[in-house]
């Protein structure tokens, strides 16, 4: 709760000038209705004939009533339009801070991102809205307080007793909101979690449509959808009910207050001490005054929601970051070009040797991980990590890059221990081609450069054997690819992302298994070109996960993993002599490569 308040307070402060101007513009919108009430009072007193006046005065009062609303409308347009900047800027600030943390903060990001990216997006959309809304409520609150103060003063001058009694239902609402806070928070969180579960399940269902159809499991899969649906329904109905009850309670307080005015004024009215005009004024003010407990109540029931939102957003951020980092004033650029990412750090300490000692990773949900792996990678070497499925190859390279949390062991760069591999093993030191690489909806050029200058682009494209593909694209490097663009084949995506890593001219290039998308020949071509590039712009040092002949034969050292442990290390010839696991892997690879292409005997493919 405190964290949510901190975020709200800091959101008001990141652009204090705009926030204050916006608030000052907004306040008249809340205060002007005071005049409307006074006009109504005068009008009804005229109509009830308690003040001797002509019809003409009544008509003028009616005209003034419209005039007041005109002024209020004009102010509202200005305040509203001005306020959009603040609202959007605050939301952008929070989103940018979370995004920056996910993308750049110390510590592995994989551990904190939820299973489905859709869920993270949900948090960045709805939870951010909840928090900004909370901060935004402060302005209507101030307006309602200002109006309330003035209205109460006017009402006290008419009838202190009735005014006093009117305040009671409003206090009651405040207390009720307070009591229901915790319940609302729990219900809200549950409804959101179950809602996300339905969305995630629908996604999985259509992702697995082939398996479902070939198994004829449609009915069972739909039955599970019904289960998810009904769980969500129960939670959502309860959540809505709790919120509605609070809303109804505030609304009822207005009606009850009007009833109380009638009740208490009965005697005074009979005596003529309380006029019909006074009644009109009280009725009119009570309606507006209801904004006060409603706004207070609004903030009170937004608070628990905001607390959940803060938890969920900081949950996406690194372990050492908290609500203060979430709401850090990191800048918003709506009217100017945002500052580009800083230049690549200098190659202050060129790679001589990377030493991995006793590296262990344990997966939370089963799986082998890796245990006690030692590995030394020298400059200019070609290291191949190979092994059976589930032996920990991908885990090992991801650990080296700091993408998964280490449960033991150290990584040292030129003899100096790397404290946070996640932020250290990045360009120009290291770059990565993952097993399931991603392209984003943008031009191919943007996808490859991602902010880098393009001086290495042509070279990288050639090295990655992507130059021919590019020539065949409709708009060349300007072709929009990714989910909302041209769909590339698996091999093209893999080579494009290889080019993306090569553009960064890393000293250490880490490549996870390319074989699922590249055929034997293309992979061979890739290694040939990268090796031939040597010092001339290509990466000096390679760590590659592969079971392909082309890679294994080329390797200076091969690390054979078996169930997370090192089963052998050395050159291919040594391992074929001394490591049974390597022999098994090698002979099977030969079969597989021969089979893949019946037109060409395997012998013709080695150079």
């Amino acid at each position, binding site marked *: 709760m405190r964290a949510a308040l901190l975020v709200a307070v800091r959101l008001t402060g990141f652009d204090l000038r705009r926030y204050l101007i916006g608030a000052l513009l907004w306040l008249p919108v809340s205060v002007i209705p005071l005049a409307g009430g006074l006009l109504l009072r005068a009008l009804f007193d005229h109509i009830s004939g308690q003040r001797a006046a002509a019809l003409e005065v009544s008509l003028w009062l009616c005209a003034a009533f419209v005039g007041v609303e005109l002024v209020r409308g004009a102010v509202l347009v200005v305040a509203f339009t001005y306020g959009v*900047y603040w609202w959007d800027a605050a939301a952008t600030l929070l989103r940018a801070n979370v995004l920056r943390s996910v993308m750049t903060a110390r510590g592995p990001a994989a551990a904190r991102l939820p299973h489905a990216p859709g869920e993270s997006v949900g948090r960045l959309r709805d939870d951010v809205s909840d928090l900004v809304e909370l901060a935004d409520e402060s302005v209507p609150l101030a307006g309602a307080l200002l109006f309330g103060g003035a209205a109460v003063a006017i009402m006290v001058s008419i009838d202190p007793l009735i005014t006093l009694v009117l305040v009671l239902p409003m206090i009651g609402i405040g207390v009720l909101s307070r009591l229901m806070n915790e319940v609302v928070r729990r219900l809200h969180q549950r409804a959101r979690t179950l809602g996300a579960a339905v969305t995630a399940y629908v996604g999985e269902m259509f992702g697995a449509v082939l398996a479902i159809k070939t198994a004829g499991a449609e009915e069972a899969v739909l039955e599970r959808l019904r289960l998810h649906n009904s769980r969500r329904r129960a939670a959502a109905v309860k959540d809505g009910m709790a919120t*509605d009850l609070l809303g109804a309670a505030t609304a009822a307080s207005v009606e*009850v207050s009007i009833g109380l005015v009638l009740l208490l004024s009965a005697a005074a009215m009979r005596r003529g001490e309380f006029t019909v005009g006074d009644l*009109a004024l009280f009725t009119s003010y009570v309606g507006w005054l209801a904004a006060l407990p409603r706004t207070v109540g609004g903030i009170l029931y937004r608070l628990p929601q905001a607390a959940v939102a803060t938890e969920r957003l900081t949950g996406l951020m690194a372990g050492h970051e908290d609500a203060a980092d979430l709401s850090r004033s990191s800048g918003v650029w709506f009217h100017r070009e945002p500052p580009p990412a800083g230049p690549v750090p200098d190659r202050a300490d060129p790679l001589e040797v990377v030493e991995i000692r006793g590296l262990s990773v344990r997966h939370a949900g089963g799986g082998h991980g890796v245990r006690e792996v030692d590995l030394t990678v020298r400059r200019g070497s070609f290291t191949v990590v190979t092994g059976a499925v*589930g032996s920990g190859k991908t885990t090992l390279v991801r650990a080296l890059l700091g993408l998964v949390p280490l449960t033991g062991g150290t990584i040292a760069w030129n003899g100096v221990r790397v404290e946070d591999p996640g932020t250290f093993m990045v360009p120009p030191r290291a770059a990565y081609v993952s097993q399931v690489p991603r392209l984003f909806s943008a031009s191919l050029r943007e996808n490859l450069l991602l902010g880098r200058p393009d001086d290495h682009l042509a070279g990288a494209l050639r090295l990655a054997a992507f130059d021919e593909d590019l020539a065949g694209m409709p708009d060349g490097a300007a072709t929009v690819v990714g989910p*909302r663009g041209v769909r590339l084949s698996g091999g093209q995506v893999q080579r494009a992302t290889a080019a993306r890593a090569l553009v960064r001219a890393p000293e250490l290039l880490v490549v996870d298994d390319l074989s699922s998308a590249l055929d034997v020949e293309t992979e061979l071509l890739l290694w040939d070109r990268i090796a031939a590039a040597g010092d001339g712009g290509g990466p000096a040092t390679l760590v590659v996960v592969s079971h392909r002949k082309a890679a294994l034969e080329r390797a200076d050292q091969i690390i054979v993993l078996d169930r997370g442990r090192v089963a052998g290390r050395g050159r291919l010839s040594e391992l074929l002599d001394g490591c049974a696991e390597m022999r098994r892997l090698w002979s099977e690879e030969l079969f597989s490569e021969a089979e893949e292409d019946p037109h060409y*005997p395997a*012998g013709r493919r080695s150079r």
Partner: protein
Amino acid sequence: MTTPITGVLRELRPGRRSAVALAAAISAATLLPLSAPQLTRRFVDDAVAGAGTRHLVLLALAFLAVAVAAQAARVVTAWLAGRLAWDGTNRLRERLAQHALGLDMAFHGRHTPGEMIERVDGDVVAVARFVVAFLMDVVASLLLLGGVLVVVFAVDPLIGGALLAYCLLAGFGMARAQRLAVPTAARSRAASAMLFGHLEEWLAGAEDIRANGAGEHTVYRFHQVASSWYREELRASRIGSVLLASTGVAFAAGTAIILALAAWAQQAGTLTVGTAVLLFQYTLMVRAPFERLIEQLRQYQSALAGFARVGDLLARRRALPDPVDPRPLPAAGPLGLELDGVGFAYGDDEQVLSGITLTLAPGETLGLVGRTGSGKTTIARLLLRLYDPTEGAVLVGGLDLRAADPASVRRRVCAVTQDVQLFAAGVRDNLTLFRPHADDDRLRAVLDEVGLGPWLAGLPDGLDTELRGVSAGEAQLLALARAFLADPGLVILDEASSRLDPVTERRVERSIDRLLAGRTGVLIAHRLSSLSRVDKIAVVAEGRIVEYGRRADLAADPGSRFGRLLDVAGVRR
């Protein structure tokens, strides 16, 4: 467009009892507020006339009771409507999911799971929300408006006429103005969709971005996208706030007109002060339903688009025609297979297969050999009737698949493909695909058979452990285990072991042999060694069969492609 929308509405229709309950609640929530001003009128008139305090206090108490009851009615209405909304949403979502699952793979090939989430979740929620809000707001608002007009007419026909004219004018004006706001609102929504679409892509690719040092650049790009989102929001809010302000002014004008008329009538002596108060209160009551109506008018546009998309999806039919007189495949035993001059093309694209003719007796196995893209996987898809051939016929168990009962095809023909699709659910559910048929012992036995026994033993909650971080190979083994659970008469293994390392594969091979025992099998395998026990071999190149025969004959023929292949791979002929 009418038909799909009525189809969608049918799914959302509540049951009779719920509908009656909701109607009662809405009526109460409308009538109770309508009666409150009557009480204030009597209160004012009687007070001015000098009635007894006791009488006035009773009136005030009645007002209190009516007010509280009205709120209670509103809460009950909201509760009922919420339940109905979710029931309708869920029903529609389930119906749509069922329908979409029934569509062909040709459809799913063109639509990503992300798009399907939008249709089956996003659009459905939007549509169902709209329908319920429509009931709640439009019906209730019109009732209230009508009620107010009737009462005011009864009080003073002239003022009633003025109020009616005013309502018509205001409604017309607001609807017109709303039309101005729709395009900007649509653009602002599109900008917001763009913003979150980018965020989703970046988050999904977080590791690629981090390890390639592009984190700061991504934040830079985010600021750019956020900036264009802000510009659209600003444009939309300009129009939106002008509309909001004009509404306020319009209602103040309406109130002023009614009050002026009331003042005039009172001066003329045809109307009491209490009635003036009553008219004032009714005029105030007109505003809220108007605003709700306009809000629904705004939602209507986007809901209409949602309706159209949902209806479109519901209207989509399977391209594979259902057999007129479906006949089941033989219920037990191995199924014979015959491909007779089969040709195939995806849509209007070039021919993928042509002149494929193959015969397998029940219990025989066939190995398909050929490089990636030669058409092996397409043959497998035809055997599963995920597509129909464009030429020739596929006969399983002597029956043309186009004439076979689809359910029996699913039961009797089973496939393990190269892409394994898993759910974030327990091991059990992933094996059975949520079907309740197999007992745990059977599941354990099956996992043992594919070599996942030790893996299962290492899981914290055994079969109930939620699958997370499963390696590609383990996923493949799980898919194989699914096949073991079924009792197919024809098994298709499409690169079923491509993700397995040789050691694991050998373990699995024995299980595959067991699976194929007494069944017909078509094997598309990466490794020639796993084709050592098939009866026949077909070598596929560029959509045609370039070599076809018994494995033993081909292996013995020194000039055969298959034989040469065995030699280079070092597999014994």
